[in-house]
C-alpha cells in the first residue's frame, strides 16, 4: 500500500541543512511524512545531503518521482545549488509553517538547534514576532555538545542524566570558555556529574531565555522542537522556568524540513528543477580560492557536480557569479 501511494501521489522533498545537522523529509500530497532522516553533517554538508538522500531512498524502498524540492537552514543556498531546489526558504518561516499546519492554535514556538536558537511568536496562525541569537551561541545546542564532550558523556545520555540530579549546580554560561572553567571547578570540589549536567541544562535555558526570548511574549500553547527537544533535562528546565508545559511534535527534529516541503507543496512548481536521486552517485565537491582582483580578497567557492562547475558564490563583486550565468 505504502509503495503504491508513493507512486500515484505527488511527493515533496524538504531539506534542512543547519550548521551541525542535516534533515531530509519526504512528504506526501496529503502532508504525511513518508520518510525522514536526521544526521550530523560533521562539517561536510554535501556528503550529509547525499547520505540523507540515500537514507530516504532506503526507507522508501525505491526511487520515486519528485514534484518539488525546497531547502532551508543556514546552508540552504548550498543545498539548493546542489540538489536543484524549486524553493529556498529561511528556517524561521519554515519552522513556523510546519507548526501552523500541525497545531494552528499554537502561540509560541521554541526551537533550539545546533548553533541557532529561535523563538517564534504566533497569533491566530500568523507569525507576529520572532528572535534568533545573533552574537552568542551560549543558548544553543552546540554549547551542550561541547560540554558533554568534555565530560565524556554522549549527548543522548545527557538529558536523562540531568533528571537524576538532586541539587543542580550553578554554572556561568556567558560563553563556553567561562562554562568550562566553572564546570571543571565544580568537578574538582566534588559535585556529582548529574548535578553538573543539570547545572549545564539550567545555564543553557537561562541563556536562551535571556538572550533570545528577552521582551517576547511567551504564551501557551508552546511548541518545543529542534534537535535539543529530545533532551529531557533541557525540556524539564525550560518548562520549570516558563511555568508551562510544552507540546513536542512527533517529528520535532525535522520540523524545518517539513516546513520547507509544505511550502514547496503549496507553491506547486509546474516542473521541478530537482537533479534526481542519481546525484548521490555523482561526485560532488566544492572548491575554494581567494580572489586577488581587489582588496576584498573574497573567498570564492565553486560547486562541482561531476567535475563541472554548477554554481559559484562568495564573490562580493559577483564577477564569477555573473560569468556563470552568462
Amino acid at each position, binding site marked *: 500500500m505504502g509503495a503504491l501511494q508513493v507512486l500515484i501521489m505527488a511527493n515533496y522533498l524538504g531539506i534542512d541543512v543547519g550548521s551541525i545537522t542535516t534533515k531530509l523529509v519526504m512528504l506526501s500530497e496529503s502532508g504525511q511524512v513518508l520518510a525522514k532522516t536526521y544526521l550530523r553533517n560533521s562539517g561536510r554538508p554535501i556528503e550529509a545531503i547525499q547520505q540523507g538522500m540515500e537514507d530516504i531512498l532506503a526507507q522508501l524502498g525505491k526511487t520515486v518521482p519528485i514534484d518539488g524540492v525546497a531547502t532551508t537552514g*543556514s546552508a540552504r543556498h548550498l543545498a539548493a545549488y546542489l540538489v536543484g531546489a524549486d524553493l529556498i*526558504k*529561511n*528556517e*524561521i*518561516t519554515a519552522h513556523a509553517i510546519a507548526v501552523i499546519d500541525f497545531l494552528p492554535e499554537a502561540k509560541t514556538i521554541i526551537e533550539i538547534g545546533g548553533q*541557532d536558537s529561535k523563538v517564534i511568536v504566533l497569533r*491566530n496562525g*500568523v*507569525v*507576529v*514576532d*520572532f528572535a*534568533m541569537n*545573533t*552574537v552568542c551561541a551560549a543558548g544553543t545546542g552546540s554549547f551542550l555538545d561541547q560540554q558533554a564532550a568534555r565530560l565524556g558523556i554522549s549527548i543522548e545520555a545527557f538529558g536523562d542524566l540531568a533528571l537524576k540530579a538532586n541539587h543542580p549546580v550553578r554554572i556561568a554560561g556567558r560563553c563556553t570558555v567561562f562554562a568550562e572553567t566553572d564546570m571543571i571547578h565544580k568537578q574538582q570540589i566534588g559535585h556529582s556529574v548529574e548535578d553538573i549536567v543539570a547545572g549545564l541544562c539550567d545555564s543553557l535555558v537561562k541563556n536562551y531565555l535571556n538572550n533570545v526570548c528577552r*521582551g517576547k511574549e511567551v504564551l501557551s500553547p508552546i511548541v518545543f522542537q529542534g534537535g535539543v527537544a529530545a533532551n529531557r533535562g533541557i525540556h524539564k528546565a525550560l518548562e520549570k522556568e516558563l511555568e508551562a508545559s510544552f507540546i513536542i511534535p512527533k517529528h520535532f527534529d525535522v520540523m524545518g524540513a517539513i516546513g520547507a516541503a509544505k511550502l514547496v507543496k503549496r507553491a506547486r512548481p509546474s516542473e521541478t528543477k530537482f537533479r534526481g536521486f542519481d546525484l548521490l552517485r555523482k561526485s560532488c565537491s566544492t572548491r575554494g580560492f581567494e580572489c586577488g582582483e*581587489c*582588496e*576584498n*580578497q573574497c573567498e570564492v567557492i565553486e560547486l562541482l557536480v561531476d567535475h563541472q562547475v554548477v554554481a559559484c558564490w562568495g564573490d562580493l563583486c*559577483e564577477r564569477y557569479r555573473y560569468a556563470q550565468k552568462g
Partner: protein
Amino acid sequence: MKVTFPHLGSMHIFCKAIAETAGIPYIVPPETSRKTLTLGVLHSNESICLPFKIILGNFIEALQMGADTIVMVGSGPPCRLGLYDLVQRVILEEMGLHYRWLTIPPRLTWQAIWKNHEETKELRKELSAKNILLFPYGLWMGWKKMIACETLEQLAMKVRPMESEKGETQRRLKKALSWVDEAKTPRAVEEAIRKGESLLQDMKQDHSRIPFKVAIVGELYTVMDPHINRGVEQKLGELGVEVTRTSWFSTHILRTLRKNKADQASERVRFFEASKAYLGYDVGAECNVSIGEAIWRSKEGYDGVVHLMPFACMPETTASGILNKVGKDWDIPILTLILDEQEIEGRIQTLLEAFVEMLEWKRRAA
C-alpha cells in the same frame, strides 16, 4: 604630508574630493574588509562598540600604507563616540605608529575653532599657499560630491525593490558612484548625477510589485555604513522593501551647522517630541530619535522598522528596551539587529527574510 580618514558609507568619495581638489596628498584606506575588522578587534576589547573597531582598523591600514595625518570628525558627549580619538590615539601610539591627528570640531564654537587652529599650526607649514587657497573650493567640491552620492543612493533605495534581476541596482549604483568619484569639476559632478540617475532608472523594473515600506533607525555608523551593517539596506531592498532612513551626512552636517532645511529640522524635532511619551530626557546620540521615528513611521503607515545598533552601544541599548514596548503599543513590527564582529551575515539574511515574510503575512491578513 599624507592625509587619511576613516570609511563611513561613501564618505571616502567626498573626503578624497576635498583633498584632491586642494592638492593635498592623501591615502584612502583600503575598503573595510575582514582584515580591517580583525586589526580593530585585536587592539580593543569585547565591550567596545563595533564602529570603534572598524575605524581603528581603517587607521592602522592607512598608516601602514604610509599616511601620516589622520583627520577625524570629533563628537560630543554623552556617548563613547566623543572619546574615540582619545583612546585610538594611545592605541596607535603604543603600536609604534607615527602620525598627526586633526579633529574636525563637532560644533562650531570659538573654543573648538581655537583648538583646531592650534592643531593645524604645524600642518599649515607644510601646505603651500595654493593648497590653502584652493581649500574652500575643495570643500565645495566635497559637498557637491556628497550630495551627488546621497541623491544616487536615495534613488537606488527607491528602485531596488522593483528590480527585475536581483543585484542589478547595486551593480548600477556602484558604477554611478564611481562616476561621481572620478569627476574633477563641479560640472562633471552634475553630469555624473544625471548619467547615474538615468542608469538607475533605465534598469528593467517590475512595476506590478507593491513594495513594503520599512524605515531603518538606530545608531549612525550602523545605519550609514554597509560594511558595519552587512548591507542591511541592500538586502532589504532585494527582498522587495523600499527602505527609508533619515541619517545622511548632509542632514547631520547641516544639523551641526544649524542650517537644516525647515522640514528636515522639524522632522527631527517631531521624532523627538514623539519619543517623550516613553523617554523623559534626551539620552543622547540617536536614542530618542530612534524611538520617535518608530512611532511616526507607524502613524505614517509604514510596514515595519529595522533598528540597528552595535553590541553594547550605550544609548541604543536603552532604545532597544523601549522599542519593544513601542512595537506593541503602535502595532508595528520592529526588528532589532545587534551588530558585532562575528560572522553573522548569514544570520542577518535569515532574520531579514523572516521579517519580510512576517510583513507579507500581516499584509495578507489585513
